[in-house]
């Protein structure tokens, strides 16, 4: 994504190349061109561009991808935290 980059070395994305069958679905669903298919395997080329949406892991037919998927949203996370502390019942800021 030209001109935009988020924090380095935080994304939890992992690809198990031994399990990968090179079907290419991960590259098809990724909106940030994190993967390329080389030979018969996928490879992570832009880990720092990963926004951990989880589309690749969900669609991988052999479950070769692992990522701590979730939404990168500060308000949502503050709400989750307040909910867990039982300060607030539920609901997210503007996105319930």
């Amino acid at each position: 994504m030209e001109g935009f980059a988020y924090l380095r070395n935080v994304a939890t994305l992992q690809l198990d190349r031994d399990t990968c069958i090179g079907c290419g679905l991960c590259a098809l669903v990724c909106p940030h061109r994190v993967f390329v298919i080389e030979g018969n395997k996928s490879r992570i080329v832009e880990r720092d561009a990963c926004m951990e949406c989880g589309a690749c892991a969900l669609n991988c037919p052999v479950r070769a991808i692992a990522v701590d998927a979730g939404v990168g949203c500060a308000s949502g996370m503050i709400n989750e935290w307040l909910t867990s502390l039982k300060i607030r019942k539920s609901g997210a800021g503007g996105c319930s």
Partner: protein
Amino acid sequence: MPGFLRWLDIPAGRVPVVSSQLRFGDRVGSWKARWGIGRMSYLVPPGLYAIGDPTPADPVVVTANYKMSYDIVRRTLAGRNVWLLVLETYGINVWCAAGKGTFGTGETVRRVEATRLAEVVSHRLLLLPILGAAGVRALEVQSRTGFQVRFATIRAADLPEFLDNGMTTTPTMRELTFTIAERLVLSPIEIVAALKGFFPILLGLILLGGLSGGGFSVTAAAGPAVAYLGAVLTGALVTPLLLPWLPTRSFAVKGAFAGLVWAAIWHALSGESWHGAATAAGFLILPAVASFLALSFTGSTPFTSRSGVKKEMRLALPVMAASLVIGAALWIAGKFFAA
């Protein structure tokens, strides 16, 4: 339902044919949703719709039942014959609903079955938005319904070209963008959200700020309120607009930087009336407010990760809290113990 033209009778039942022309009411509705007015109940009934005069061979495009998503998709498909399958996402857009799982495998399967889609069309292909992939496991939809899922494009606007090119997704169709216009359109909701949450603070600032020498001064009250409103706009409007050019990759730092610039501008503008403890308080509080709102904007961007936001929050929230507390203490002390 919005845009209804007539009923189309097919063997599987009646399907509403909807217009590709947005009316004045649709535009007003979209504008209201952007400003947070009735946004949480801006939805259309889920189900199957017809655009143009589709036959069993025509494509099926899948979208969410947020009315703005539905409007954008039906408008972009003007002049074509297409089936539109609207999923129940409770009025949430595709991307956010996929993150929550409501634009998901289960709902896709349920909606394909409920609309008896297999009897409506002769092919077995569903065209989904690429951002729906975070919620939909394509292979599972296929094994449960017989329909193959193709993730077509990110933007609805690319659908016509996709359809004309024999359903080929070009590299630009699968790459996210976040242009100035795309950022600007998000600002109203950010500002509304920021002002809602901070209204009591504004009131407190006006009341406390106006107290001077035993009386209440309107001019003295206006200063802190304007400074604060400026910080809100800096965090919710200016920072998103200048996002690529503000320093570092951290949203909290970008916001704090913009907030510091605002504090300096406000200090220069207000000149004499702003000195000592008030100056220190301004330089502590205004960047913290802008920084917090900038950090909140992570939820509206299409490139921030959960792990990244977690890290920022862990590092930045304590600093913001400290700045606010020290700044507020300095300001109040300055007001009451000033010579």
